[in-house]
Structures are given as structure tokens and as C-alpha cells.
């Protein structure tokens, strides 16, 4: 039987409500045509990275009264996270009720065994296969597409099959949104207009700031000539042109000679910014060919006018009014939100952590941007909560995760990036986001009715990232990885110095280690079967013994053999070993992309100073709910089974969780 669409469902719900108001009997009236309609409500608040130890600490200090109230009425449990505890993996566990063996997302990045090159794990974009070349233009004759690589059925798709309405606000690993008529807007994994996870721009006259490509950004040199700056804002690759140039928008900035004010002039608009002022969202239109353009949105921030001009422009987000890529279901939902709220953040992780890391934004400026993200999301939550009268509402908060990544160093005196001066100003930035989460929860608790099941949860916890482990360097030093020119160990990347004919293992991604297996990898060397299994056990055992000479601590708490820990049809794509790091440790900055720094261990002095790549048992997430929890040790995939159970829906055969109530 064809599932009922949302409109049909709402029509029936309205009819049932009318009868109920006239004194009818609810359960029998809501069962129409053999379909289960329900007035049961489940509200899920997803606080990315909320850590149970920090939550407990600030609960005990009385700083989180709303969480305390909720816990006293219900329960609080550490929530078992995914292996590895990376957000795309963990949220996929929750979305599908499986583990990576079922949903096939093992890491932020996978690898192509034929090229040994990393690939995006979450989505795959393909360009038009058929094109027509006319002069300098390449016209697509068949549409390109973008595909969500998460396997399995999400809980909101299953709810839909049972006519339970759901609104899913920015849940990670849902880009592009999986097919459904439910209201969903994509979250983590949604790219910017350039197709990246976020590339900002800084236009400056400061000679001391290095120009060019940075990690997650670009710095352009500009000149102030007669109080005027001319620059070009880079947009997406223009695939309509044969040489695929970047689409560009010319703009000018006119600087007031007497005041700290400037006018930004774009082709179709102009606005005035004071020094240290954010512009709010501005729409920008990139022309691709005479009849084609693509629309984006971005924010300008006039960081400094004198002595050096510094203008920051955020990554260009997909315009929700005219999405260049699918970001919602139905497609009109993004436009509906845009009509109500105007432009809004569509990039998966909106806070520009790279700009803070690169010094383009300072701590205070980053927090200003994060504040905008929080307030914008909260307004959207209020809007959805107002019309939440049945089914499920999921709401996602990214700031809990992003602030811990960037500010852990300022609350941890042992961290190599600890700065006492900055700590005196921003040392409470992490605590503040927990207090902010509590304030938000308080507002929800004031509005929520007693019959609504509330699940406040996180995908993983957090820990300091003090020391970095160069997995590929360790493999090289231990003879598992061979370089063609060992004296050039530190040069190059993406394994361009690797002698694959003699290499037995390599690391790609944030937790993954692969064997160079015959018949699977292009130049595979290790036979499948007993040879591979023996080598996996040998390497795993050695990895668990690696001790950091500086601290005397083990870097890797557990090296998991993927075949033994995953369930489902996707296991063949898994890394052979998943490194579960010890507290305080993480993979290095360089190893994930096939580099071989000189030392196995390094201090992490970056601003990105908190992380969550540990063995799952040391990085649990959080579950706080207004119901008593029967399960001692609930897991992310248990929540999926629980949600279905609340609505009286049995879990699917692929799901591995159990209800927690």
C-alpha cells in the first residue's frame, strides 16, 4: 500500500481531532484504513559532542539547573557511542539503528583501493556525463547528481511508512537528504557553494599575514588606492566553461577617510559596515554563462580598517531560497524556512573553525559568529516547536561540539596550546556552551507537555587533544610501510613516495588502518585469509603497546579488528583496524592524508585542541530523558529502536539496538 503523504496525514489527523473534540474515542478514531495515527510526541535534542563528565561536573556545581530538573524527573546515562566516535559515524548509527557495518560510514573519509586516495565518506557528487562543447562553453546535456552514501533506512523514513510525521532539523549524515516526504533540512556534510566543507576569504593589506591558500580558507592581498579597495569574491568552479575557471564576483570597498566605516559595493547591492561589524546575510549571484547563474549567501565582517585593511567573508553557503544542491525534503521546505527567517546557515558545520585556527578570526570574533548560529537555530526551533503537534521533532546543536574543539586548550593547563592570557578571557567558553545548552533546555521544559517523550542526547563525548600520533610514520618505522626514497620521508603527501610493491599497511582517515591486500588494493601484497588475519592481529597487538616517550602513556587504548566488531553487509568496506585512542591522544594532523612526519609523536599546539577519536568506552555521549531508563548502558542505536517502539513500530531486521525504556 502506498504510504500516505504528509498532507493526507494531516488531513486525517485534523478530522480525527475534530471528532475527538466532539467527545469521540481517540484510539479507535485515529485508526483509519488500518493505519496507525498517533498523538504521541517525541522530541529529540541533539547536542553534538556533549560530554557526560563535563555535564556531571557542572551539574554538581549547580550550573545546569534545567538538566538537573530533567534528570530528577527522568534519567541520565552515558550513551555508548560509535566506533570510531566521529560524528558522521555516530549520527549514522543513530539515524539507521545500525553500526558502520550496516550503514557503511566508517570515518569522515574512506579510500579508493585502486588509487589509495582518500574520498568523502558521506556523499558522492558526479558531474553531467553528457556535455556539449560550444566554443569556450561546456553545456551539460544530462544532469549531474549528488548521492548520500549512508546505507540503510533512517528512522524518519520508517516513521513515514507508518504515517508518523517527523521534522528533522539538520541531523548530521543527511546530505543530500534521504528520500522522504517528511520535513528535513540537511546538516553536517552539507558543503558550501564551492563544494567544500568551508572555504572563507580574507582580503587584507597586512604584509605580515601570509597570502594564498590556507587550510579551510584563502588570504588575498589587496591595496587601498584612494580610499578604495578592489577585489574579487571567488565562487564555485564554472563547469560550463572548458577551462573550468572559478566564477568570480567583482566588488569594491570604499573606506571613509575620517571614520572607521566602509561601504561594500557588490554588483547589485551596497551596504555600510563599521569596523568590527558583521553584515548579516548577503546574497551573491555568480554568473556562469549568459543564461545561467548560481546563488549563494555569505557574511562580511570588517575586521580592521587601519592601519591594515582586513575584510573577512564567510564560506559561501548554499542559498536556501534557490538551492544549488538538494538540502531539504520536500525541496520547498528550505524555501519555506527562508521565507520565514530570511537567509540562514546551510553549510553543515557553520562555525568557521578554520578561520580561528588560521588567525583570520580571533576568539572573540569566532564566538560572535557562533552566537549568531545559536540564535538563528533557536528561532527556527521555536517555529517548528509551535507547530509540533504529533510525531517526532529532532533538533540539532553544533556549537557544543565546535566550541569544545576550539577552546579546550583554554581550560586545560596541561594542554600545549594553553595560553594564560587568553584563558583569563575565554577559559569559560566551553562551560558557557553547556550553560547555553541548559538555558535552551529550560525553555523547552517550560513549553513541553507531560506526554511528550524528551530525549536530550549527544553522539560522543570529548577529551583533550594534547598529543598527536603519526600512524603512517609508525607503520614506516616498523617496516609495514615502505617508501621509495626514505631520505625524502617528510616530503609530499597522499603516499606519493610510497613503494606499494613492498608496503603491507597504510593509514587513511582519522582512525582507520588498511592492509595493502592482494585482490582488493591496486598493488595489493598481503594475501586475503590467514595472511591478512595474522598481520592484522600482529599490527593491532603492537599498536596497543605503543607508548608515548614524553608521557609514558599508551597512545592507542584499543586497536579494534573491524571484522570482529561490526555487523551488516558493509563490513567489506571497513578499514581492517580501527584505532581507539587513549584520552589526550588523536591521529596527527598530517597522517590522515598519507604524510610521514619525522616523529611518531608530536605536541598539538593548534587551537583545535579538544577532540573525540578515542576508544568508544572513554568517549561516551550523553542521554538525559524525562522517562526512567531501564537499560544500564544504552547505545546510540538503542535510541533508534526506542523511538520506533514508542510509536509501536517494530525495529527492522537490520537494526541492532533494543528499546531502553
Amino acid at each position: 500500500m502506498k504510504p500516505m503523504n504528509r498532507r493526507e496525514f494531516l488531513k486525517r489527523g485534523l478530522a480525527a481531532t475534530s471528532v475527538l473534540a466532539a467527545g469521540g474515542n481517540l484510539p479507535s478514531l485515529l485508526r483509519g484504513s488500518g493505519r496507525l495515527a498517533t498523538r504521541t510526541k517525541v522530541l529529540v535534542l541533539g547536542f553534538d559532542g556533549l560530554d557526560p563528565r563535563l555535564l556531571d561536573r557542572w551539574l554538581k556545581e549547580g550550573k545546569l539547573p534545567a538538566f538537573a530538573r530533567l534528570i530528577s524527573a527522568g534519567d541520565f546515562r552515558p550513551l555508548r557511542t560509535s566506533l570510531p566516535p566521529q560524528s558522521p559515524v555516530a549520527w549514522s548509527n543513530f539515524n539507521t539503528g545500525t553500526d558502520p557495518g550496516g550503514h557503511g560510514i566508517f570515518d569522515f573519509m574512506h579510500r579508493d583501493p585502486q588509487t589509495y586516495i582518500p574520498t568523502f565518506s558521506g556523499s558522492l557528487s558526479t558531474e553531467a556525463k553528457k556535455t556539449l562543447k560550444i566554443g569556450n562553453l561546456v553545456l551539460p546535456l544530462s544532469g549531474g547528481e549528488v548521492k548520500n552514501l549512508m546505507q540503510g533506512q533512517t528512522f524518519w523514513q520508517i516513521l513515514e511508512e507508518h504515517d508518523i510525521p517527523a521534522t528533522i532539523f539538520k541531523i548530521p549524515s543527511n546530505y543530500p537528504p534521504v528520500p522522504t516526504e517528511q520535513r528535513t533540512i540537511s546538516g553536517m556534510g552539507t558543503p558550501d557553494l564551492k563544494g567544500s566543507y568551508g572555504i572563507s576569504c580574507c582580503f587584507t593589506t597586512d604584509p605580515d599575514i601570509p597570502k594564498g591558500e590556507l587550510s579551510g580558507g584563502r588570504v588575498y592581498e589587496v591595496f587601498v588606492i584612494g580610499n578604495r579597495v578592489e577585489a574579487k569574491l571567488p565562487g564555485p568552479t564554472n563547469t560550463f566553461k572548458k577551462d573550468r575557471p572559478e566564477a568570480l564576483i567583482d566588488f569594491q570597498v570604499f573606506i571613509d577617510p575620517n571614520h572607521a566605516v566602509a561601504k561594500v559595493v557588490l554588483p547589485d547591492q551596497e551596504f555600510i559596515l563599521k569596523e568590527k561589524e558583521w553584515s548579516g546575510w548577503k546574497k551573491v549571484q555568480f554568473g556562469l554563462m549568459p543564461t545561467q547563474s548560481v546563488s549563494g549567501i555569505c557574511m562580511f565582517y570588517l575586521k580592521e580598517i587601519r592601519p591594515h585593511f582586513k575584510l573577512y567573508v564567510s564560506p559561501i553557503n548554499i542559498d536556501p531560497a534557490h538551492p544549488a544542491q538538494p538540502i531539504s525534503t520536500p525541496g520547498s521546505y528550505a524555501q519555506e524556512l527562508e521565507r520565514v527567517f530570511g537567509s540562514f546557515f546551510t553549510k553543515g558545520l557553520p562555525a568557521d573553525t578554520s578561520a580561528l585556527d588560521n588567525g583570520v578570526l580571533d576568539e572573540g570574533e569566532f564566538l560572535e559568529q557562533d552566537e549568531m548560529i545559536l540564535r538563528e537555530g533557536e528561532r527556527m526551533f521555536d517555529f517548528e516547536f509551535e507547530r509540533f503537534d504529533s510525531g517526532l521533532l529532532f533538533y540539532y546543536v553544533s556549537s557544543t561540539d565546535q566550541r569544545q574543539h576550539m577552546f579546550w586548550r583554554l581550560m586545560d593547563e596541561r594542554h600545549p596550546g594553553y595560553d594564560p592570557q587568553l584563558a583569563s578571557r575565554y577559559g569559560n567558553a566551553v562551560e558557557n556552551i553547556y550553560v547555553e545548552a541548559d538555558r535552551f533546555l529550560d525553555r523547552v521544559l517550560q513549553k513541553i507537555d507531560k506526554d511528550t517523550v524528551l530525549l536530550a542526547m549527544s553522539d560522543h563525548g570529548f577529551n583533550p587533544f594534547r598529543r598527536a600520533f603519526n600512524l603512517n610514520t609508525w607503520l614506516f618505522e616498523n617496516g609495514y610501510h615502505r617508501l621509495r626514497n626514505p631520505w625524502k620521508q617528510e616530503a609530499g603527501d597522499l603516499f606519493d613516495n610510497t613503494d606499494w610493491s613492498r608496503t603491507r599497511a597504510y593509514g587513511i582517515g582519522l582512525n582507520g588502518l588498511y592492509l595493502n591486500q592482494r585482490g582488493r588494493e591496486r598493488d595489493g601484497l598481503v594475501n586475503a585469509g590467514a595472511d591478512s588475519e595474522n598481520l592484522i592481529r600482529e599490527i593491532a597487538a603492537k599498536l596497543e603497546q605503543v607508548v608515548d616517550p614524553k608521557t609514558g602513556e599508551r597512545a592507542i587504548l584499543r586497536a579494534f579488528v573491524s571484522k570482529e566488531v561490526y555487523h551488516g553487509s558493509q563490513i567489506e568496506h571497513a578499514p581492517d583496524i580501527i584505532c581507539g585512542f587513549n584520552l589526550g591522544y588523536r591521529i596527527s594532523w598530517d597522517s590522515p592524508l598519507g604524510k610521514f612526519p619525522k616523529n611518531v609523536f608530536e605536541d598539538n599546539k593548534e587551537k583545535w585542541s579538544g577532540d573525540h577519536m578515542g576508544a568508544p568506552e572513554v568517549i561516551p555521549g550523553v542521554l538525559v530523558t524525562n522517562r526512567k531508563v531501564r537499560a544500564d548502558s544504552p547505545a546510540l542505536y538503542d535510541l533508534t529502536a526506542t523511538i520506533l517502539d514508542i510509536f509501536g513500530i517494530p525495529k527492522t531486521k537490520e537494526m541492532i539496538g533494543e528499546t531502553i525504556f
Partner: protein
Amino acid sequence: MGKAKVKLNKELLEKVKKFAQMAGYSSPEEFITHCLEREIAKLEESDSEEEIKKKLKGLGYIS
């Protein structure tokens, strides 16, 4: 197929002829075409690798 002449110095041309024959190519032209195609493919591939790196770096987890 369009044709164009490419100048090679005498020494290189002799090597091309020699190795084309040794490697079993039917002609020096076929050998040169193959070499050029292989090198161009590498360049095209490295462009896309650069793109992948840039995109992944925006995540914040790698440098």
C-alpha cells in the same frame, strides 16, 4: 584524427625509436602518444587530488 609535427632533438628521437621497438610499440608515434596520454592523465588526477585535499581541510580535522 588531427596531425601535428613535434620537434625532438636527434638524440631523444633515437632513444624513442629504440625503446619503442624494445617495448613492442608498433611505431615511435604510438610510443610518444602513449607517454603523453599517461602524463596528462597524471596531471588531471593530481588536480582532482588537490581538490579533495582542499575540501577535506575545510572539515578542521586535518591540515
